């Protein structure tokens, strides 16, 4: 079996599990975007006279930001609790590695699985945004791969973090002190140009900022400052790609160390 075949076997196993558990996740994939877009896009948006400041309606601005932020949350989710369960709770990873599969195969397989999950979640998000009148359908769907890239950058790096943890409280800490601040301060709800200079520079270094930039530039062709920055689009693509790759390599190495002491 090649490494791709072996990884696909992990995907297949995830699909078998998903056949039993999809109901809960599908509902949240539909309900969350509707709740966010209603609260933030419509109700909050009606207070914001954004067209003057941003050049686009606030609903449009926030829908594109939330698309990236949703990808981050789902991506980080795939890399955290299910991975921890495989190691410590249900321990199925320990059984998997007594077959021809190795810890690295588990990491690669779960990476492919995250791509599938994120694609589904983001297509749903894009379509709901279209129904809200926030984005045009063509660019909205074109932005899905940008969202997937944002999501997997978090999946691989969070997986690398998770497999080195002994205690699940580290995972809630990660969400509380990394994911949530990123969610709030990465240009999702307001342009980072609103931030004080020093914070703005920090924002440029964070992953979700690049995810939001990327999604917005693709979903809203021709959009300009201040809704997005003047940073070239390839910078964001490169940032997220490198982050994904580093996460993947580290996760495979750390999981091997964890499962084969």
């Amino acid at each position, binding site marked *: *079996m090649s490494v791709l*075949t072996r990884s696909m*076997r992990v995907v*297949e*196993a995830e699909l*078998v*599990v998903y056949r*039993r*558990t999809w109901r809960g996740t599908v509902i949240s994939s539909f309900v969350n975007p509707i709740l966010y877009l209603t609260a933030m896009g419509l109700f909050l948006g009606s207070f914001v006279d954004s067209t003057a400041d941003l050049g686009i309606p606030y609903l449009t601005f926030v829908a594109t930001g939330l698309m990236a932020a949703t990808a981050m949350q789902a991506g980080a989710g795939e890399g955290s609790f299910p991975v921890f369960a495989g190691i410590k709770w*249900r*321990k*199925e990873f*320990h*059984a*998997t*590695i*007594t*077959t*021809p*599969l*190795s810890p690295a195969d588990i990491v690669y397989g779960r990476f492919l699985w995250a791509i599938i999950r994120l694609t589904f979640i983001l297509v749903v998000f894009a379509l709901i945004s279209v129904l809200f009148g926030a984005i045009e359908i063509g660019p909205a769907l074109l932005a899905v791969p940008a969202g997937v890239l944002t999501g997997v950058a978090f999946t691989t790096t969070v997986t690398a973090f998770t497999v080195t943890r002994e205690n699940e409280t580290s995972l809630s800490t990660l969400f509380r002190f990394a994911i949530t601040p990123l969610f709030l301060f990465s240009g999702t709800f307001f342009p980072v140009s609103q931030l004080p200079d020093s914070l703005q520079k920090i924002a440029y270094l964070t992953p979700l900022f690049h995810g939001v930039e990327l999604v917005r530039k693709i979903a809203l062709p021709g959009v300009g400052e201040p809704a997005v920055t003047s940073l070239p689009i390839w910078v964001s693509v490169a940032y997220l790609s490198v982050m994904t790759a580093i996460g993947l390599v580290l996760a495979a190495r750390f999981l091997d160390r964890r*499962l*084969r*002491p």
Partner: protein
Amino acid sequence: MRESIVRAHGLTKKFGDFVAVDAVDFDIVKGEAFGFLGPNGAGKTSTMKMITTVSPITAGDLTVFGLDPSTQGRSIRQRIGVVPQEDNLDLELTVAENLYVYGRYHDMTRANIRRRIEELLEFAQLTDRAKSTVDSLSGGMKRRLTIARALINDPELVILDEPTTGLDPQARHVLWDRLYRLKQQGATLIITTHYMDEAEQLCDRLVVMDKGVIAAEGSPRALIAEYAPREVVELRFEDGQQDDAVIKLDGLAHRSEILADRVLLYTDDAEATQHEMGVRGIHPGQVLVRRSTLEDVFLRLTGRRLID
């Protein structure tokens, strides 16, 4: 001579400064049921993990099917079945789905897996539970499913780490029967256990492990013959009377073991020993005469009981 399946020489596993397995030697041949008997912490599981290639060896030599676990792990794992100490089944999946996923991990075709699942469910006496989720199974059923899962790839070597720990006596006997059948079908079995009756029932040969080293090796019968006289007289005394009686035991048997709750007398002739007790005025509350077991061998070798 029969083909060697697993061969270890000076096999050592360290975790930092802690030596879990300390330069052990053993040779397991095709078709036998080989046991590792020892208390918790003896190094049994660490040894199993090295054989199943999921834990790198620290020092010494180890071959499985003549292959090197550090470089040919995947080829080894293709040909073995592993029953871990703790069930790690996927609880959300059905019985059949658990088997299916592992068949795919072993690169089997779907049609092949379906055929094999049918056989294995019958073997594990779970045919009528094929569509139940694992969550709803009893402990014994889960254990049988874990064993069935280990057999999905028709392995030449099956490694069972404490297969019956935590099961009730009836479930243990069902499991023993299945393992016995497996052996009759020609599989080589490696079994770790801290139950001496399990080792006696299932193992052709075994090693007694304690604190990372092998204390003795042989067939259950040979070990008992070598390390323990034929019969054991177990004495239980009324509260506080054991100490008074112990003084009078000298020379009564080949050897005696004074435990917290009872005294064991090792003898070739239990009747004569009991008669002599009467003569000396030793009157325990309870007397039990039994055959020697591997537990007695272990006690002799280490001065401790297998399960505390």
